[in-house]
């Protein structure tokens, strides 16, 4: 950690962009955020996967899941509200059809998983434990769009510990619980993750939200409520990452409204080891790639030889 400013490095210098998420070494700290990059292949024509730090795929559950009715998303000021409802083909089909495709790339694939019960979480994790081509598991305990009670896992500390511990038992893969933003003490969840055997944490998931059409007086989402993402939540996410970083030594994957290199840097400055780009990908599919390139430039200007110097380098 450094808290001083340094003279810029010259333009030829190639800063070291690699970071470690627990036992997992990434070539650079920029990932895609779960649910915003599909199963990767959708973006194959536009994005050079080999340039990304990791690909995090859409949440996978034990059984196929059809998700919510439509409309599923609505655009709001500087944000997007989604209530996709975790639609996914289930773990078996995912492994067969999608993971097979992703294995062609050298980029680590992090699989986002969820369940309706502790047992389901453990079962999905167990299924992936032996799957080659899965670099880590991200545990979605915080999706607001599922009503079967999994909601609780993200905001109730006891339930959270239980699910993290159960997944820990089920797999030796690096495990990354993904925290919900709608808690008053994010530090407590960060510590609980650490105590329950997590290798890293990621945050934030989308922020519970709602929109109504004043004319029809109906909710604008079929699911009534959804999760807010995009630039609108960036300052909220940054605050939570900063707070979490002060509560745990676990590496943090920070996300929420990142659209520019500077935003990625901000998350690392407050303590994230890596970042994920979500909603921004919809408007600019190459955002994550662009940020990887931008970071090298940024580090040179900051006089930093390694992106790891950036982590927690907030000056006061």
């Amino acid at each position: 950690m450094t808290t001083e400013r340094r003279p810029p490095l010259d333009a030829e210098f190639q800063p070291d962009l690699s970071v470690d998420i627990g036992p997992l070494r990434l070539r650079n700290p920029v990932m895609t955020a779960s649910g915003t990059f599909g199963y990767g292949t959708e973006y194959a024509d536009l994005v050079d996967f080999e340039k990304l730090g990791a690909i995090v795929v859409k949440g996978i559950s034990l059984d196929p899941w059809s998700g919510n009715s439509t409309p599923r998303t609505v655009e709001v000021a500087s944000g997007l509200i989604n209530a996709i409802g975790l639609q996914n083909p289930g773990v078996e089909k995912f492994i067969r059809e999608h993971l097979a495709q992703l294995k062609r790339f050298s980029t680590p694939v992090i699989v986002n998983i969820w369940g309706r019960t502790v047992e389901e979480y453990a079962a999905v994790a167990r299924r992936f434990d032996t799957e080659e081509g899965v670099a880590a598991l991200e545990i979605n305990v915080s999706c607001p769009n599922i009503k079967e009670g999994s909601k609780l896992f993200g905001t109730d500390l006891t339930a959270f510990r239980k699910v993290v511990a159960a997944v820990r038992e089920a797999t030796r893969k690096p495990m990354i619980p993904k925290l919900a933003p709608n808690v008053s003490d994010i530090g407590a969840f960060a510590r609980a993750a650490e105590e329950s055997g997590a290798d890293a944490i990621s945050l934030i998931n989308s922020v519970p939200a709602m929109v109504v059409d004043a004319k029809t007086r109906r909710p604008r989402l079929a699911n009534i409520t959804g999760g807010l993402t995009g630039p609108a939540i960036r300052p909220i996410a940054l605050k939570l990452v900063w707070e979490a970083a002060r509560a745990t030594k676990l590496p943090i994957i920070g996300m929420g409204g990142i659209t520019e290199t500077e935003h990625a840097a901000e998350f690392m400055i407050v303590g994230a080891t890596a970042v994920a780009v979500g909603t921004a990908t919809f408007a600019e599919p190459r955002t994550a790639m662009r940020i990887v390139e931008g970071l090298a430039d940024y580090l040179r200007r900051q006089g930093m030889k390694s992106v790891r110097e950036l982590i927690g380098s907030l000056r006061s």
Partner: protein
Amino acid sequence: MQTQPPSITIEDAEVLRQEPWQGGYHLLVLRAPFIAPRVQPGQFVHTRLTAPADAILRRPFSVFKADGDTLQILYKPVGRGTSAMCALRPGDSLSLIGPLGRGFPLPRPDAVPVIVAGGYGMAALYLLAKTCPRPGLAFFGGATVEDILCVSDFEVLGWEVRVATEDGSRGVHGLVTAPLDAFLANPSRPSTIELFACGPNGMLRAIAERAHHYSLPAWVSMDRNMGCGLGACLTCVQKVRGPNGHAVWARVCKEGPVFDAQTILWEDEA
């Protein structure tokens, strides 16, 4: 059998021209050398406006015409994004992702192509009309005469255009289904017909019902709000009958926007 989408690009198109059209529509002519030559009938481009700054999604538009390295969009300002689009001037740039989606299948050589369209559907079906091996018959519907677009474009291709307006200001007084039904019910009409439709949901559903009733092949281009436009976000899904007869979600941006009308599960059937 539908055509396979060619590979997708992202491209900063240059605005060559923008002009007001009738019925509140605007014509936007863009130079898009990578995308324009690859557009198939029924495909769309996903456009990124820089204004308003708080709008974070792209907006999808069907390609009206594609010629060499230029393409044209016929659009109507209905909200903030499309209103901001009106301010584009020659020389401005507009980021496009495209060509996207699965367009219309190659029209059957043995069938008379029949197009049914409302709103921007008249523009969205032009490229199809142009690639049809032989001219066919087009039914255009709208609220009033102003809403009936590009008739002459179709006529130049040798198509016959029959119009219906809800206020009777042009053609038949009523919905587009009125002249269509008259045509379909006419015993002397050609027996081998293929239907292609783009327009409001209610219209598409009405077409699907006719197609079912007369056992005609029919293709409908669906309009759904979109997120990514690439199949990743699952915003644009539509319930369809899957291969095994079960209801499944199809992504309008990827498996569509054009669907076999008989596969669509309309709202109350889904």
